[in-house]
């Protein structure tokens, strides 16, 4: 996901690998690569300059801790400085509160509002939504449709032009609910009347939280926009949306630095479940190409209840079609494969493109085909001869080609996972996580 960015960074780090004495030239080179990497992920240029200066000074000045090599030392400093940059993750409490959504046009406020409603609903809260977007046609239809899907009450009136009036009525009608999310119209800092409107909305709702929604692709403008929003309504959290694309979300980092707040959530998909709690450690690790195991584990925990077998199947020794079957089931709940793989600590390892191409519909097909296999075949796919393939295909209502494709896919997965396990023998999730957290 963040490959290009982290490749050059890692090359630079590699140069520091074996060294036990800090090499000024190598550190300089690393800092330069770091700058380029961060700038190309849209982090504010000034911020990058400050950051890289701090890293350079600290790397050269600080004593090398005993038992670490230069690479680890510098990596730790880079990591710490980046974590400092994203500030702390803000606390999301499960108590009665009002949340005011703010952001630029098209940043994904409405979708995120629905996702948030779903998130809090799943945590067992009584949630309501107010649609204060009186400008964009279809805005009320959009949010009310999304809310209806998850049975969350949504207050709004597409014919009313006064956002304040709607909000006032909405607050009244939803006063029995514990958590109210106010979705607002998109606006930018130069539209003074709209900025005035959101100031008034903030006063009216006495919002507990005012969250700024930022598109992961937003560039250098992020700082400036965030600053203006912050001046207007005192932003206390940032949500990054569209992290499922190729954008790196550096703009959100600038926004966070500007508002001295934290990143609360990350939106990474089009369905209503695609919202993750932000985890600064994980985000930075991902930025550095180190994988984000914490988020994966959290997601896995939520998606896979105990009876759905362990996540470790993926990492464990023998990988059979049967494992793939349970995985496809589990993965379906966890979200697209690419997202999951993006979170694994595979660093620079190049995965064959085909691995990602399995869409959810295909996964369903695969499971149907596997349903037609005998237990023996599931345990040892090598058994599947061409006549058996015919039988399986007929049983599943598929063509032999599809069966062949499935087996090809299986082999690819098998190879991939073998590579993932590496030479270390028992390379399981726990160990990976331990390794990862030891790095901080």
């Amino acid at each position, binding site marked *: 996901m963040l490959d290009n960015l982290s490749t050059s960074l890692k090359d630079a780090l590699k140069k520091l690998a074996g060294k036990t004495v800090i090499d000024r030239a190598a550190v300089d080179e690393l800092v330069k690569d770091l700058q380029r990497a961060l700038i*190309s992920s849209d982090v504010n240029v000034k911020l990058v300059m400050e950051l890289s200066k701090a890293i350079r000074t600290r790397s050269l000045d600080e004593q090398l801790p005993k038992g670490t090599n230069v690479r680890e030392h510098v990596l730790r400093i880079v990591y710490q400085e980046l974590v400092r940059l994203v500030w702390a993750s803000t606390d999301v409490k499960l108590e009665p509160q009002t949340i005011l959504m703010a952001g630029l046009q098209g940043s994904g406020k409405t979708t995120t509002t629905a996702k948030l409603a779903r998130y809090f609903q799943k945590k067992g809260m009584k949630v309501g939504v107010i649609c204060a977007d009186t400008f964009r046609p279809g805005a009320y239809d959009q949010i009310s449709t*999304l809310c209806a899907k998850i049975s969350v009450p949504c207050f709004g009136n597409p014919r009313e032009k006064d956002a304040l009036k709607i909000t006032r009525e909405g607050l009244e009608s939803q006063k029995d609910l514990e958590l109210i999310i106010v979705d607002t119209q998109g606006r930018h800092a130069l539209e003074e009347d709209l900025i005035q409107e959101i100031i008034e909305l903030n006063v009216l709702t006495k919002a507990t939280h005012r969250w700024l929604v930022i598109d992961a692709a937003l560039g250098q403008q992020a700082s400036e926009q965030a600053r203006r929003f912050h001046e207007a309504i005192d932003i206390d959290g940032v949500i990054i949306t569209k992290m499922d*694309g190729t954008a790196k979300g550096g703009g959100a980092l600038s926004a966070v630095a500007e508002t001295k707040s934290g990143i609360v959530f990350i939106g990474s998909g089009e369905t209503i479940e695609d919202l993750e709690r932000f985890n600064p450690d994980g985000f930075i690790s991902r930025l550095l190409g180190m994988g984000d195991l914490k988020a994966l584990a959290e997601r896995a925990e939520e998606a896979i209840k105990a009876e759905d077998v362990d996540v470790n199947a993926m990492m464990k020794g023998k990988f059979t079609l049967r494992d793939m079957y349970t995985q496809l089931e589990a993965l379906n709940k966890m979200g697209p494969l690419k997202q999951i793989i993006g979170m694994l600590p595979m660093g620079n390892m190049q995965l064959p493109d085909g691995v990602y191409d399995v869409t959810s519909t295909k996964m369903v097909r695969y499971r149907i085909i596997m349903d037609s296999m005998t237990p023996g075949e599931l345990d040892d796919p090598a058994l599947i001869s061409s006549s058996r393939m015919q039988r399986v295909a007929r049983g599943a209502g598929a063509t032999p080609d599809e069966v062949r494709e499935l087996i090809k896919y299986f082999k690819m997965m098998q190879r991939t996972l073998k590579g993932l396990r590496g030479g270390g023998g028992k390379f399981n999730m726990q160990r990976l996580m331990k390794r990862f957290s030891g790095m901080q």
Partner: protein
Amino acid sequence: MFGGLKEKLQAARNRLGISIQEVVAKQEPPALETRTAEPGMPQAQQKTLSSAAPTFADKVKVLIIDRELIVSEKDISDALSELEMTLLESDVALLVSDAIITHVRTNLVGKHRKIGESVDALVVGALKRALLDVLGKGFNLTEYIRIHNRPVKILFTGVNGTGKTTTVAKIGAYLKKQGYTVVIGAGDTYRAGAIEQIGVHAERIGIKIIQHQEGADPSAVLFDAVQYAVSHKIDVVLADTAGRFHTKSNLMNQLEKIRRIMKPDLIVYVDEAVAGNDAIVRAAEFDRTVGADVVVLTKADMDSRGGAAISIAHTIGKPLMFLGTGQGYDDIMPFDPVQVVEDLLGSDT
């Protein structure tokens, strides 16, 4: 529009001017000595010297014979790195700004400059050439429609939330004002409320809209829109589509299917002017998979810099057609690269 970039480029330009002025200052004394000695040498011998690495002797020779100065890389490197920062701060993607800097450098280094020629003009010239080179030519939609067979089918693509639907409405209003008949195909059948959104727009600007219900096959909707245009002799079909990320192969395949079925004459790639480095990644990917003929940049009113225009144009080499500059139907303006560059750098040359 793009005021920020303008300011910064002006500053960089002054800076570049200063460092060339320094070169002049350094080399002026010998010039004064020789000026009287050889007053009227022919100008015909210009640019005969190698521009790669002018030696001191070369410099003096050029100075004396041609009454010109040679700009060396060292003289301008500081100013160029400053210019690079400026571009980066204006959201020009890293790769693109690298390319521009290289371009400006090759344009300036080794150039012979007449003593009388203004330093400013030289720098501005190089910058202008670089930017114009990157931006390419604009695109005249009305002209395009005029010379093509009716109905002209225009497909809008792009990632989520860039403003495709709003742009479709604006272009619809724009064309209607020019006297063309327009039909809109509500091809975003995925996002909740999208059909209602485009429906309201169409009603307000008085354009016929072809729509199916939510979840329908967008190809079918757009096919119907084209059929409607054919049977009603309508000039232009504007096909809205759902936003999609270039990383989702199934959605990109769907777009490919749409293209196959409605056979658009023009594929418009819509992105926002505030996008950062990702702009080049996704533009390249859209261009690669479904193609893109022209580009529309939206939300230019919240952006005072305009780097995305340069990044995208540089990456896929397609002309920019319109800039979206606000929330009203009239807030759209044809993109004129010469005008933009003139705006950025002043029109003194």
